[in-house]
């Protein structure tokens, strides 16, 4: 992505950011640490969605369901069973992946908005289970006070844990995007017919992308439980999915790191504008419209474009 800056300098840059993030909890007030951790979790979710939306060109409208499945799985494992904690942490992403495979298997048969609506319907069936199965999931009240191992019980420790997992996931996602598979996926996004013609199994690739993305969404779900210790059916509701989708669009869905920015913008807007006015959705709406008009490529897309307008255009078109 930053082709203008050399790889080496980019690595240094990222390392510095990582170190700064590591020392944040010791210098920032507790609340800001919490908000940054929340942004991490949300951005991992948005990034995972972007694998499908930005790189795969699919209308993944109900990504929240996989996040919720991950979160519910780990919460149920930690509250209802006495298995070791790490089993729950692994089970979350695994369940999300399985759900992703099942839903994706049906969805890849359809295109665009049909894909989206089928996914919303299938996802909503899962939401209905979480909403209705009172004895297991606690119904619409959800499960609160999920016990965490002592190591993760303090807020700072959970911050470090989330930061480390996020970093690993981001690296993995970057490698996936740059792998031959990632490039094929982008080719399918830009021209599915041609890819079909040269013998690429479009549906299988799309399904693979969904499965990978849902795995990371499941990880984000687990991290959410680590941070908030609560699960509730809203995590599986389409409103949340729409919000995450908006984060991708807002940050710039053709850039790798755009969704992080989108998540940061939305989470901090709703937290800090919410302090001053109850009409924060109005403010959010106005800001969104301004962004649509003045930064059509998303915020990240704008900055990258500003750095190197030409190269980006070329890179985007040629892929």
């Amino acid at each position: 992505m930053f082709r203008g800056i050399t790889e080496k300098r980019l690595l240094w840059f990222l390392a510095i950011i990582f170190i700064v993030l590591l020392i944040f909890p010791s210098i920032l007030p507790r609340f800001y640490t919490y908000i940054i951790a929340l942004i991490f979790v949300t951005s991992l979710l948005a990034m995972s969605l972007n694998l499908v939306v930005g790189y795969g060109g699919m209308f993944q409208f109900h990504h929240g369901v996989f996040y919720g499945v991950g979160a519910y799985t780990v919460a149920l494992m930690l509250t209802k069973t006495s298995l070791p904690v790490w089993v729950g942490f692994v089970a979350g992403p695994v369940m999300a992946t399985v759900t992703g495979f099942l839903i994706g298997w049906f969805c890849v048969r359809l295109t665009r908005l049909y894909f989206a609506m089928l996914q919303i319907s299938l996802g909503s069936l899962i939401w209905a289970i979480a909403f209705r199965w009172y004895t297991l999931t606690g119904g619409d009240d959800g499960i609160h006070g999920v016990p965490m191992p002592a190591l993760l019980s303090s807020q700072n420790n959970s911050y470090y844990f989330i930061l480390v997992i996020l970093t690993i996931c981001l690296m993995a996602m970057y490698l996936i995007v740059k792998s031959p598979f990632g490039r094929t996926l982008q080719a399918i996004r830009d021209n599915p017919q041609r890819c079909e013609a040269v013998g690429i199994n479009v549906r299988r690739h799309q399904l693979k992308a969904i499965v990978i993305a849902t795995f990371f969404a499941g990880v984000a779900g687990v991290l959410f439980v680590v941070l908030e210790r609560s699960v509730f059916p809203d995590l599986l509701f389409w409103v949340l999915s729409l919000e995450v989708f908006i984060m991708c669009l807002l940050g710039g869905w053709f850039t790798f790191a755009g969704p992080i920015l989108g998540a940061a913008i939305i989470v901090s807007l709703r937290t800090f504008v919410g302090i001053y006015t109850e009409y924060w959705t109005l403010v959010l709406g106005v800001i969104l419209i301004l962004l649509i008009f003045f930064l059509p490529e998303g915020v990240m897309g704008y900055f990258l474009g500003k750095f190197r307008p030409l190269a980006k255009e070329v890179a985007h078109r040629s892929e």
Partner: protein
Amino acid sequence: MKQKMVLKIFIIAILPLATAALFFSSCKKAPKIERPIKVGIIDCYSGPPAVYAKDALNGFKLALNEINKEGVLGTKIEYTTRDTKFKVDIGLSMAKELVMREKVDLLVGTISSSVALAVSDYCKGEKVPFMVWISKSERITGEKGHRYVFSTGENTAMAGKAGGVALAKKPYTKYWIAGDDYEYGHAIADAAWRNLKKLKPEVELLGQSWWKVGEPDLIPYITAILAAKPEAVIFCTGGRSMTNVMKAIKATGMAEKVAIWIHTATDHAVLKPLGPEAPEGVMGTMDYHFYYPDTPANKEFVKAFKEAYGEPPGFPAFHGYITAHFIAEAFKKAGTLDREKFIDALEGLKIASPVGEIEMRACDHQAVLPMYLGVTKKVPEYDFIISTDIVTLTGDEVMPTCEEIKKAREK
């Protein structure tokens, strides 16, 4: 040697300084509180529940005006509000912001029981008192109750028991249960049916219907229920669905065919917008009416509220009002801003309220509130329908006992 000497001098010098510092700091705290008491309110100020949240806030503000005239511990009570949008994640963020950034002394809220439960759990960890004022989930002070959570509103266990007690006195045996398909609806249904069955074992449940929250068109459900020909229907619904239910009952003429009980059917916020369109003859329970009880205290409260906000208070305003008084009285009794002392003071505290003396039960931190059972009827004094033939069920009659709460918490 020399080093030891330095150390000695150092210690000798530091000790009196430290004691002096301790002394002064404790001195400063004890007699008078310099800063105002900060109350953080999280509630849903957008979407359908906003009408209740605003009403509660108005009641709270009215009480604060009275309280701050003379002050509490020589200081004032201040508040700040946050909108949760009825979402648990936003509610949690806002609660954390209020506790960590605004450093409030205690939290107050909210209408959503899932937000209340989530925040309650957070407050348990942070050791911050949390007073729930509208949310009606019995789990808040029941099985999920703990030292730091209080409820100043009635809950589903109380409402359901009131319904069960009331219906057991009626001759009906064939029942149907219908309601909003979420925790609140099911909790009321369970409580009402459990109590009814206990008091009158011969009752029979013909069936149940549950619709999604906010379902706009309930007529298909009502006609389906009527087709099953029950003698009485227990509706477990609240908020805006209430209006839809009442309209559907009126449109289908259901109230003339079967007996109906709905908790909050006699709520003014429901009946007023309906005007003459509200059905008559529906049994309802409420924990507050601005026209009942007809006592001077209530009249005074209603008059003050009307002057301030133009409307008579609804039940959330009453909850908000008593919440503020509970807070003020507890701080006065505790004599300090210490949270633990505040909680100790609040346990078992009794305050005067528009409906008489109210106690904060020490065993489960649930305010003991009476329930008013009435029947909707048109009367000449008002151009909207009100609750009539009101029977008062005292708090002890409708609340789960301390032993039951203890058992539920052990589960």
